[in-house]
């Protein structure tokens, strides 16, 4: 590991610790609700769908929570920092924008993962969803990739927004569109033929496909999906490192 990368990793750890502490102090109760919110949705959706689609419903539920929370939280954090002029303070620090964005985005990742595990446990315990517990580590890896693949969306909404209210509205609308209008609650094959290639432009499509494949033990599909998600993560890291709106033009 080069000294530059090592230093960035150390800085990321500091940013994460700082923001995690701040966020949990400020939002403890809301974060508690956030963790259990997907379970209710899971009950509802499970009631509607055929048993063979249960793994898809489980994945859709987890994806909705993770994508919405990730996009919303990151965009709103940046909006808040811009409003309080703290963003200027971050920009003037000797850190890469990637460190700031990863640190800010990672704050809610532990909550998303706990939420996903609770949802998974409910799906197994209450609905009899059969999964091999050895897939859990792979599932966690998949969730981290899903988180990373949506990170840039939150960043761009945050830095290009003009006010916290606008950023919040944009994040919620875009997050909902991404989760409800992309095939996360249903397979890609359920889309009209014309839309199926378009769906693969969205990271959430790959995310859902990967997680379903992990649950179903479809190794090859999971691997392809994982690679696609990793490509998204890389693209976002490059975009963020180039820092659009980090230093204003």
């Amino acid at each position: 590991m080069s000294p530059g990368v090592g230093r960035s990793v150390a800085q990321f750890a500091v940013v994460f610790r700082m923001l995690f502490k701040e966020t949990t102090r400020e939002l403890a109760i809301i974060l508690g609700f956030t963790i259990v919110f997907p379970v209710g949705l899971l009950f509802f959706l499970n009631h509607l769908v055929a048993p063979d689609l249960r793994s898809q419903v489980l994945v859709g539920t987890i994806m909705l929570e993770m994508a919405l929370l990730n996009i919303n939280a990151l965009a709103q954090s940046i909006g808040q920092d811009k409003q309080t002029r703290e963003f200027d303070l971050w920009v003037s620090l000797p850190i890469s924008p990637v460190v700031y964005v990863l640190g800010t985005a990672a704050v809610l990742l532990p909550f998303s993962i706990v939420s996903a595990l609770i949802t998974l446990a409910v799906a197994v315990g209450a609905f009899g969803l059969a999964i091999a517990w050895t897939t859990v580590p792979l599932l966690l890896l998949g969730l981290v990739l899903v988180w990373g693949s949506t990170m840039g969306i939150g960043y761009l909404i945050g830095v290009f927004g003009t006010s916290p209210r606008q950023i919040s509205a944009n994040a919620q609308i875009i997050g909902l569109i991404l989760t409800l209008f992309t095939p996360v609650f249903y397979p890609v094959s359920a889309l009209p033929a014309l839309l199926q290639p378009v769906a693969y432009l969205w990271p959430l499509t790959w995310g859902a496909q990967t997680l379903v494949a992990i649950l179903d033990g479809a190794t090859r599909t999971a691997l392809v999906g994982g690679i696609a998600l990793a490509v998204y993560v890389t693209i976002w890291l490059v975009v963020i490192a180039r820092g659009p709106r980090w230093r204003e033009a």
Partner: protein
Amino acid sequence: MASGGPLRGTATADRPAEETVLRVDGLSKTYRSRRGDRTANAGIDLEVRAGEILALLGPNGAGKTTLLRQIAGQLLPSAGRITIGGIDIVRHPIPAKEILSVIPQECEPKANLTVEEHVRYFALLKGADPAGIRPYVDALLTRTGLAAERNRLVRELSGGLRRRVLIAVALAAPNLRLLLLDEPTTGVDPEARRAVWQLVDALRAERIAVLLTTHYIEEAEYLADRVAVIDHGRIVAEGSVDAIRQRLDHAGRLEVRGLDHLTPAGRALLDELERRYPVGFRAGNTERLRVADPFSPAASADLARLAALGIVASLGPVSLEDAYLALVGNGRSEEGG
């Protein structure tokens, strides 16, 4: 007065032979939009040396904050060059930011972190040694007068203490060589303002260069080794406080107060004085007349005549404020009026 090019005054003679920490050459910033271009900074040259405090004075919209944000690496210049410790901040932002700290205007620290957490985390981000972080933070908290508040959340602090937290955060940089302060005492009470001034003043001994913007003339007079006056995006004068004062073509001022309570005799006397001394400044209830020599018998006699009519007046040397108002045009607009 204030005609001709920017004043460089006696800067060279005033300043010790310290190394230049901040150098700004030909800096310009133009904001482009569909409604048209707006030039916020135009051809600015500036330098601040180690252990020197430079105050940037200017009216609202003069381009002070734009200049500071470019120096801090928050805003990209349209033209020109900025180096900090010899490092170009546009081309090499991270090494340059290692040696600078900034307190943005109206910035708020994080409400749900403690004072100690603020200083510790920011120090680590700016390269403090994790192994020695505790004594480093302790020393900073003591120095900034925040030791007693170390475990309090920022949301529990007064505005003045929050400002001090930001200063502590700015100083939490082991390699600090340049401190940028954007209106550091705006909105704080006089006591807190004094505390901030003392903290900034003490940086001189550590050879830290300071560039601050301010609306408060007394802040510049108290703190600054040199003053740069910016107006319409250009530096219109730069030099020591004395050098800028000497730029005026008069040495004194006769200040008359209570203009709206003048008796007919008082009004007549003031009319007479206005014919002999140009009006340098008039605002509300107060008028300042330009007096060539405030210690001359004639000026003293005029002061006595005003006092005899019960008019509140004072005679003294010109201040930085007089020079500032003349330079940025406020004085000119009132002249002869």
